[in-house]
């Protein structure tokens, strides 16, 4: 089990990963609140990107509607907390279950009806949009007016209810991200990983080799949507407010997938690297604009777009695969 995770990984890669993890562990002790908030954002995007990567990077199913899973999980956990006093650690289970169910319904409809590629992507957007409008009119969670979790000033963190300082959120998120990374590595090095890659590359040939393509696609969707649900629960309890307009929006879906695409679709470290690069880039641009005295709305995003364009044109597989090669960190086989 454990040996499968590190089999074929060069020692240097393990050392570097260990250093990165150590750095992230001590970070809250040395950085200020602002940097910590950015690191939380980085981990949030790294984790969610990893979840999306299972579906697209591994199994080759392009979802542009992952905000759907974030959103319904966020609303589920938040509503259970506000209406029934059910804490997030208990609420996370129904949240995951509902997200997975949504993923499986979409997957079932799409894969049974033979919808793939662009059409599948559009179907995922359509379902997210449909849900967004539905929540706009869902009075139980206050519709388009937004749904709020009570914010109380507490002296001590209360991890059981996910109420507390950013440092607490940071460590929880770090643990989740590390576990997700290991989980994905475990999946990718197992039979299911090979099967997903085969399906991604050539579904017809994969089926000929005895792979039940429908079933493995469904498993990918279930795992991806279930993992994404955790992001939603985290989002609800970290930000304490949910608006259908924001959480289900297409631009949110796109934001979630930029990291893994920039970092490298299908690679394990790509989503993490992508999240770091993108978030850092955004902050640097903000700082520069601020320093230069330009406070024009939109200028940051324009710069963002240009960087994105540059990466996709010049590094088609993302930043990580060429960087990995340069660093000599590729798996030995």
């Amino acid at each position: 089990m454990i040996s499968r995770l590190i089999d074929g990984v060069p020692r240097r890669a393990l050392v570097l990963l260990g250093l990165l993890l150590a750095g992230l562990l001590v970070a809250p002790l040395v950085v200020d609140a602002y940097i910590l908030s950015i690191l939380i954002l980085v981990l949030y995007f790294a984790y969610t990107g990893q979840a999306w990567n299972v579906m697209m990077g591994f199994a080759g199913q392009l979802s542009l509607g992952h905000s759907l899973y974030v959103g319904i999980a966020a609303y589920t956990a938040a509503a259970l907390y506000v209406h029934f006093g059910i804490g997030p650690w208990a609420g996370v289970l129904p949240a995951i279950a509902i997200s997975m169910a949504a993923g499986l319904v979409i997957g079932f409809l799409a894969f049974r009806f033979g919808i793939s590629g662009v059409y599948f992507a559009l179907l995922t957007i359509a379902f997210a949009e449909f849900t967004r409008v539905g929540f706009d009119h869902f009075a139980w969670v206050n519709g388009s007016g937004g749904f709020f979790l009570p914010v109380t000033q507490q002296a001590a963190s209360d991890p059981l209810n996910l109420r507390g300082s950013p440092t607490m959120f940071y460590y929880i998120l770090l643990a989740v991200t590390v576990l997700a990374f290991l989980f994905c590595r475990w999946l990718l090095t197992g039979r299911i990983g090979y099967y997903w890659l085969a399906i991604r590359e050539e579904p017809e040939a994969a089926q000929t080799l005895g792979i039940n393509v429908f079933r493995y696609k469904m498993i990918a969707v279930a795992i991806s949507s279930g993992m994404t649900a955790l992001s939603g629960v985290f989002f609800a309890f970290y930000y304490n407010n949910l608006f259908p307009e924001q959480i289900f929006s297409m631009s949110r879906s796109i934001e979630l997938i930029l990291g893994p695409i920039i970092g490298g679709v299908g690679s394990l470290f790509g989503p993490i690297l992508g999240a770091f690069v993108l978030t850092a880039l955004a902050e640097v641009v903000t700082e520069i604009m601020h320093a230069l005295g330009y406070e024009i709305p939109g200028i940051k995003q324009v710069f963002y777009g240009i960087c994105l364009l540059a990466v996709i044109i010049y590094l088609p597989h993302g930043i990580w695969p060429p960087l990995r090669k340069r660093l000599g960190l590729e798996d030995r086989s």
Partner: protein
Amino acid sequence: MPTELVFTVALQGILTGLVYGLMALGLSVIFGVVRVVNFAHGEMMTIASYGAIVAFGAWNIDPLVAMVPIAVILFALGYAMQAALINPFINRPEHSQFILLAAVAIIMVNGLLMIFGPDARSVLVDYSLDSIEIGPLLVDKVRVITATMALAITAALFAFFKLSHTGKAIRACADNHLGALVIGLNVKQLYALTFGIGSACVGAAGAMMTLLIDTTPNIGPVFTLQAFVIVIIGGLGSMPGALLGGVLIGLSEAMSGLFFAPSAKTMFGVAILILVLLFRPQGLLGRKA
């Protein structure tokens, strides 16, 4: 509810839908030939809308007149985008193409935001509030005019593809990429031309749209989605399908605004889309792949 009101709203919806159809037609033509989904389609429309707003604000040019130069400019923009950006991406995986155009879309939306700010703008011509009597129904004059022009442009485009040499060459590219290469067509140039034509459509639609709705930079992504919904309902690559899809969406928006909440209007469009994808994925008028 009085029947006349229902019919009036329905007719208004259909007329608006024809302009939607023209916008979506651009997307359909581009996908049908180049096989790339233009994720910046709505954003390009918004650029055209702002062009019309500026022309009206600065020189008092009617959007229906400004439409012509705007379509030409959008043609150039589309041609340049295809030639410079998209052609090298033709054989890249779909998600690469998507991210490329998503990046373009982000730049466009926020570029407009930088220039024009987030406030809604509209064009108020002297006939904006006029109505036309059609039998017992009273409909907005601008909707009748814009719908007629949308139909005329579609007809012209249809004739271009059916009759002109270039139009036939483009269709050949769409039907058989390899074959087109073999007989010596300059496929890349034809692709750029097609992207230009699709962009000109959305440019004309964007100029007209200023007479019908308020424009903000953020409606770009909304209309991108709208255009997808329309072309998939009608059938990707089918020109009459785009018009039919536009009309259906215009109608469903108008009806849901009348019978339910106006904010629920996109839900019906998306619901139709999901049903079409599941039961007739090639679209209502699309050919089976």
